[in-house]
């Protein structure tokens, strides 16, 4: 999937991946896509909730070799 910005949140634990994602999305334009890579297993549920609450669309969520990848489109 294409994306405009990438956030490496590997090794970071709750709530840092969410906080970093929020900050990065804040620096992006509406409609742009952020690609996040995380290792915190809690981030799967957390990014779902984050997207629902903030209205930024979670385009994809996938697990790959103990790494979690997300694509979020800025509102």
């Amino acid at each position, binding site marked *: 999937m294409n994306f405009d910005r990438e956030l490496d949140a590997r090794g970071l*634990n709750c709530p*840092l991946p*969410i906080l970093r994602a*929020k900050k990065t999305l804040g620096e992006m334009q509406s409609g742009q896509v952020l690609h996040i890579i995380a290792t915190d297993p809690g981030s799967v549920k957390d990014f779902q909730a984050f997207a629902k609450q*903030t209205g930024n669309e979670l385009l994809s969520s996938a697990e790959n070799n103990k790494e979690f990848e997300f694509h979020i489109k800025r509102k």
Partner: protein
Amino acid sequence: MGATPDIAVIDDLIRQRLDEILPQKLKEIQDSKTPSLAIIATKGTLDWAYPPFILASTASALGWDVTIFFTFYGLNLVKKDISDLKVSPLGNPGMPMKMPFGPDWFKSVNWNIPNIVQAGIPGFESVATSLMQQTIKNNGVASISELRELSQEAGVKFVACQMTVELFGFSHDDFVDGMDYAGAASFLPVAQVSDVCLFI
């Protein structure tokens, strides 16, 4: 001359119409409202410093309005210098005592040290605190100062209880910038309209 309108019929029409409109209207009101979180932080140790700042920073990332009211030992969490926050395993049976170094089998050992021994060893708390800080770092968990900074950057309101500031002999200079100083009468109206209110 028209007939007098029948009140019962009108009431019935209004009720029907309200049933149709109200759920949608209530949903609109709910959706347009910014959720809010009000926290009272009363503990001043390294372990108890986490819940208020994790919840506050996360709530603000979700777009919520957040206020933290720091009172009693919670004031320790907003001092400029928080390098002296400690955690104590003494009289704290819920706290696992594990080593942050060595092979995995060694790290998983829970060191069950009797209270009387903990109390008798000078500097036990400081050692436990540095082990905890190392564990926090190893696990990619944010430091308290980082979470506090992120909270403040995100617009979380910090309010210190003026009464306990005086009671403990602190001065406003001891605390981070951007604090408000107030009392219970200021916090309660904030708590009243908050969606989530926590005493930590």
